[in-house]
Every structure is written in C-alpha cells, then in structure tokens.
C-alpha cells in the first residue's frame, strides 16, 4: 500500500520538491494551528485579541528547553522521545499556570472596562513576557542538542529524495491526537458546553448557573496548554529558541485564526495549515526573505475581502 501510493505519486509526475515542501508546510501549519486555537477560543469567548499569546508560546518553548536539558543531562533519560513526551506534559502544566495567572492578573480586572483596555493590557503582557524571558534567560539564541535526526525516505525521483523526518511525523501525529482530545473536550464535556454557552451570551450563561469567570479562566488555561504543545514542537522542529520568537509566530497564528474564521475551532486549524503551506511554498518558489510579508499580506487580503474568514460567522453590525 505504502509503496504503491508512492509509486502513484511518482507516476503522476508530481515535482518531488513540491511534495517535500508540502510535508514541510503541513508540519509548520500544525504548529500554527495549535497556537491559533488559543487566539480563536479567547476571541470567541471574550471578544479580545490575546496579543500575548505568541509570547506565551515562546515561554512554553523555553520551559520545554529547560526541562529537556534537566531530563537528559541531569536525570539522564536516554530516550529522546520519552524525554520529549514528559517535557511536553510538564510544559503544558506550567504554561497553563502562566495562562491562568495572566488572565487573573492582567485581563480579569479589566472585564467590563472600555474596549481598548484588554488589548492594551495584552500588549503590555506581551512586552513583559518577552523581556522577562530575556532578563531571566539571556538574549542569545538557545540551541538544543540535536534531537531525532532520522528521516524516513518516501520516494526518490531524479536523484531528489523526498523524506519525512521523525520530527515531522511526531509533530503531525501529536497535533492530530491533541486536536481529537481537544475536540472531545469542547463538544462532549460540561466545560465545553459552558464555554460554548459563554461564547453565545455571557449574561445568559451566568443566569443559567455557569461560572463565567471560571470558564473564561479555563479557556485561557486550555489555550496556553495548546500553545505549550506548539512550543515543544517548535523547539523539536527548529532546535533553537530565542526570547523574541513569540511575536512573528503569534501574528501568523492570529492570521491563521482570522483566515479560518475567528471563533471557529476547525477554522483555526485549517487556517494554520494554509498559512504554513503558503509560507513554506513561498520560501521555496519565490523568496525566503519575503515569507513573512506573504503571510501578513494574506492577513490584510482576507480581512479586507472576507472578514468573517472561511468558517466564521459574519459579524452583524448593531446600532
């Protein structure tokens, strides 16, 4: 089956470079998708752009890096995959704590305040987080020891080997599994129901006995947890992290959320995959220097011509 599929691709005459870039793009897109869910959930429930979400993601990558070092150099776990799994869980817990604390300290006091206040507060949190990490961990790039360098060659054509690396496989599989769990949480548990109720009408949700504050706090916690998975995957994929790495992925993930239709969870993932693909294909075929410009241009084009995104509900203008 495997061989025949690859033969089919080869027979179809698809450019092997294109297939390779497709794989790379989907990997990157998975990471963006995981971050984008955090944006889209928070926007759906309290209507604010959590500007600091990109920095929470960066923070989680640092937490993952430090625990990876602790596990491999101090405790001495030999298996990188096992270490990564433990690191991911720890990073999720600690980043969720950060998400909770930020919501409690910087956003909750502003609920009911004027519209710009949470956005400005979030910008403040974003600046705080990146500089906190800079002060605490230093401004240099932090490279990890090489992790999982092996690749699975898929097929060869004209001397060009298309390969799926273990990293990419892990990232895609993790994303799929996490999204399945997450989907279950949102669709089937009481927390998910409370979340969807708050999203529709916060006041009514409170009237029917939902603890709105708790639900919102848990939304931030969930978003931060997903960002932590993305952060661990990012660290695994690139093998380096820097205190300033939160901003650009953050904006791109927001673009993904907008592209998919803000407030829509599947939309966020689809948007993330599209942004990842566009970025990688743009780098491969046009110019690597302008890949971020391409992503930002998509944001502007989408918002101008399709403000409700692919799967979003159109915004109704009320008097």
């Amino acid at each position, binding site marked *: 089956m495997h061989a025949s599929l690859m033969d089919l691709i080869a027979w179809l005459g698809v450019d092997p470079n294109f297939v390779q870039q497709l794989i790379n793009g989907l990997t990157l897109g998975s990471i963006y998708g995981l971050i984008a869910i955090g944006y889209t959930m928070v*926007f759906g429930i309290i*209507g*604010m*752009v959590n500007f600091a979400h990109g920095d929470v993601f960066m923070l989680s990558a*640092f937490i993952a*890096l*430090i625990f990876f*070092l*602790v596990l491999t*150099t101090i405790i001495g776990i030999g298996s990188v995959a096992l270490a990564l799994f433990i690191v991911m869980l720890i990073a999720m817990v*600690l980043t969720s*704590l*950060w998400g909770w*604390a930020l919501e409690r*300290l*910087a956003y*909750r*006091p*502003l*609920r*009911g*305040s*004027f*519209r*710009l*206040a*949470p956005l*400005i*507060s979030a*910008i*403040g*949190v*974003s*600046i*705080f987080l990146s*500089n906190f990490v*800079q*002060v*605490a*961990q*230093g401004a240099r790039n*932090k*490279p*990890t*020891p090489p992790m999982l360098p092996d690749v699975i060659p898929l097929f060869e054509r004209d001397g060009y080997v298309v390969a799926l690396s273990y990293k990419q496989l892990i990232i895609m599989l993790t994303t799929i599994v996490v999204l399945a769990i997450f989907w279950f949480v949102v669709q089937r548990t009481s927390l998910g129901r409370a979340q969807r109720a708050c999203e529709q009408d916060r006041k009514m949700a409170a009237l029917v006995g939902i603890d709105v504050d708790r639900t919102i706090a848990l939304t931030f916690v969930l978003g931060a947890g997903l960002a932590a998975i993305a952060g661990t995957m990012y660290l695994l994929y690139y093998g380096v992290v820097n205190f300033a790495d939160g*901003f650009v992925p953050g*904006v791109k993930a927001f673009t993904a959320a*907008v592209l998919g239709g803000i407030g829509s969870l599947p939309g966020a993932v689809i948007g993330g995959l599209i942004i990842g693909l566009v970025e990688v294909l743009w780098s491969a075929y046009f*110019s690597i*220097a*302008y890949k*971020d*410009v391409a992503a*930002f241009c998509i*944001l*502007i084009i989408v*918002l*101008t011509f399709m*403000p409700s995104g692919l799967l979003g509900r159109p915004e109704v*203008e009320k008097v």
Partner: protein
Amino acid sequence: MAASARLPAGAVSAAPEPPRPAPGFADALRDALYAALITLGLSIPLLALRTEQGPNGLVLEPRWGLVAACCGIVFVGRLLLRLLGLRAVPSRRSMAARGAVTTRAEPERQSGFALSALLGPVFLGIAVTFPLLAYLSAGGLTESRYWVDLGILILTYVMLGWGLNIVVGLAGLLDLGYVAFYAVGAYSYALLATTFSLSFWICLPLAGILAAFWGILLGFPVLRLRGDYLAIVTLAFGEIIRLVLINWVDVTGGGAGISSIPRVTFFGIPFTNDETGFLGWMRWLLGWRDGAQGSLGWLFGPEGPTFSPMHRIIFLYYLILVLALITNLVTLRLRRLPVGRAWEALREDEIACRSLGINTTSTKLTAFAIGAMFGGFAGSFFAVRQGFISPESFNFLESATILAIVVLGGMGSQIGVAIAAVAMVGGPEMLRNLGFLSHVFGSGFDPNEYRFLLFGMGMVLMMIWRPRGLISVREPSVVLRERRAISGSHVKEGHG
C-alpha cells in the same frame, strides 16, 4: 478629587461599599501561601535554571536563591495586602460601576478642567526654557548635552503621540502600525538626502507628503475593518514596511541601514566652526568683526562668540519643539473644522455618522493621512538627528510605546499625551541613573535591562488603575451656552 470624581452618581445614593470585616490571620496566611506557591510554579524553570552556553551545548545554572526571594516577596506582599484589607486590583463591582457612568458633568470635574487648562502654559514654559534650565543646572553647554538629548527624545514622542492622537484619539481608529509612517518619513529624508543631496528643509515637507500618501494607501484596505481587526491589520502593515526595509537591500541598505545622513543646517548654514558656517553667522548677527565688538559683542568678551557643537543640538531641540507645537496647533484647529468634527462624530457612532450623510471614507482617510503626515515629519527629524537609521528603530515596540503614550495620556487629550510622553520616555531613562542599586543586587545588576519589563508591567497596571488615562477630562469641541469639561468616560473610543 480623584476619589470623588470617580464615583458615579448612581452609586452616590447607595452607601459606599461597607467596610469588609478584617480577614482573619489564618485566612490571610493561607491566601499568601497560595500566592507564593503560584509564584513558585511560575518561576520554577525560567528563573530557577538559567541556560548558559557551555563548551558542549547549553548547561543549566541553578539560581534557587532568586526563586526563594521572589516567593518570599510575593508572600509578604500578599499577606500585608490582605491584612491591611487592601485590594491590589479594584473589585469587579466598582469596575462595572465605573464603566457605566451615565451622569452629567459633575461640578468637581471643573477643577480638573481648570487644572488641565493651567498645565498647558506651564508645560510650554518649561519646554521653551528647557535648554537654558539644563545649561544652568548642569553648569555648562557640553555638560547639559545629556539633558537636551533627553528633551529631544521626549519631544519626538510627544509629537508622535499627538500625531497618533489624531487617528486614535479623535477619529477612534486603532492604529498599531503607526511606526510605519515614522519609518517612511525617516527613510524618505535619508534616501532623498543621500541620493539627490537635497536639503533637510526641502525633504521635510516631502517626507510628510510621502508619509501621508502611505497613510492613504493603508487607509483604503482597512476602511471596512473595525476594532481589533483594524488594530491587527495596521500592525501587519507596520511589520510589512519593516520587513521590506530589511530585505530591499539595494535601496534601503537592508539591516545595516543608511549611515552618514547629512546633518541639519541652520536654514542652509551648516553648523561648523568657521566663517562660512554657524560661527560666521553668529559673528555677522552680533556685528563682531576681527576684534571690533559690535552692538552685542560686549556679551562675549574680546574673542567674540565661540562655536560649540551643542549649538546644533539646541537647534534640533527647538526644531522638534516647533514641529510638535505645529502638530498640536493643527490638531486643535482641525477639531473646530468640519473634518475634525466629523472625526469625533465617527468615533462616537459610525452608523449615526453615515446616516447623517458624513462621508466616512474620506473622513477616515483624512485622519490616516494627517496622522501619518505628522509621523513622517517626526521620522525625518529622527533621521536628521541620528545621522543613521536602520529598520530596527522601527519595530513594533515603538508603535506600542506611542500607542501607550496616547492611551495613558487619555485619548484625545493633548496635554495628557505630553505628560504621558514625559512619563513613558523619561521614566525608563531615569532607570539608567539607578546605578547605585548594583551595590544592593551585586555588580552584575544593570537596571537598564529591566526597562521594558517594567514598561510592560506599567501598561497593564495603568489599564487596571486608570483605563481612561491620566487626564480624564476632555474639552468639548462644540459649546452650547457655557464651557464645561466632559468626563473621559463619556467619550467613546470608537469602533475601528
């Protein structure tokens, strides 16, 4: 005044919040313990273990003392807060009440109005005499350089704040990419001056026009956007400009930037120490010729007026002061014109605006264009002052700083923006002077590292403490019978 003015009329009839029973010591202790535990959780990997580059990859350097100190501070702080019955964060109830102010202007506000009316002339007086004050207090021209440079920096941000205030404060369009226009202005001057050797005085208006053009260019696609969407698109626009500046190496010099930008001239006369330069001009002005003292020559003694490089700096100071005041004046006058009223109407209610026949397209575009124009002026001033520009001067942090100045000042309040600029730019600068703290925290302690950390924290605290900004009174642009101040909480922040 602050406490009473913030109470809405609705809450006056109801008794103020009853004094809460003093919390038991055990409760407070438990609460503080939780806070300390959370701090421990937050700081465990990031503060406790610092990654350092070792010979074979990263090594971890434990710093448990720091974590213990942080937890201790949080524990004690939280305990004290609880025992004293204070709240670090205003209660939700008072917050909601504050948001729902629906009263007329209260008499107490008038005093705030008078105060802010008085602040203007005071600030202007200080600004005009600032180089003299710096000269007197520092005891010499060269010694006062630091202070005059700081003054220039603050005034640049005052001007940027006033420029952005047109877009955000008056028209209610949230712009997170204002730094793009600053960059356009700076690169316009730098490129025109280095390529065509045009004078600063020709480039200054050109830079403003080019920035205004870019403002319109940005304005078109975002006309339909509102709120946070608009904010993010303008942010993306700012980033695009910066990325193009970095990557278009042939024109902009890429990340290395543009250096040796021609310096400012005294309306064509270079600041040099010879007869054809500023020295000669001073001599001519004072009638001093080869020892023959002119009408004012007695002021300078036998060797006549001497040239100092500080003359250029002081000239730059007054240049940016005049530019900032022009921005202010134009804004104040525009508010009285139909277009200014349309801006404010747009901020209050866009739908009502449209139904009254106001052309929202041109109203938004003029706001973007005029705001951008002043950003462009400030940018070309920045380029002529620095002599070197690179894309790194125009990152998102700059936009955030300018926006924070506008919001902190109270959107729409001119004097508030000036005060906020002093606080936001001058405050972090003062951190440099805290070198004595290194005796407390060890020699490796550099307070300057913590600038942006504190800056970010300040932004959050500001939003919690005074979301309406420092100056919470607004001057109405149209007056019926009597002049009254209006509270900032009556002013809407716009939809887009």
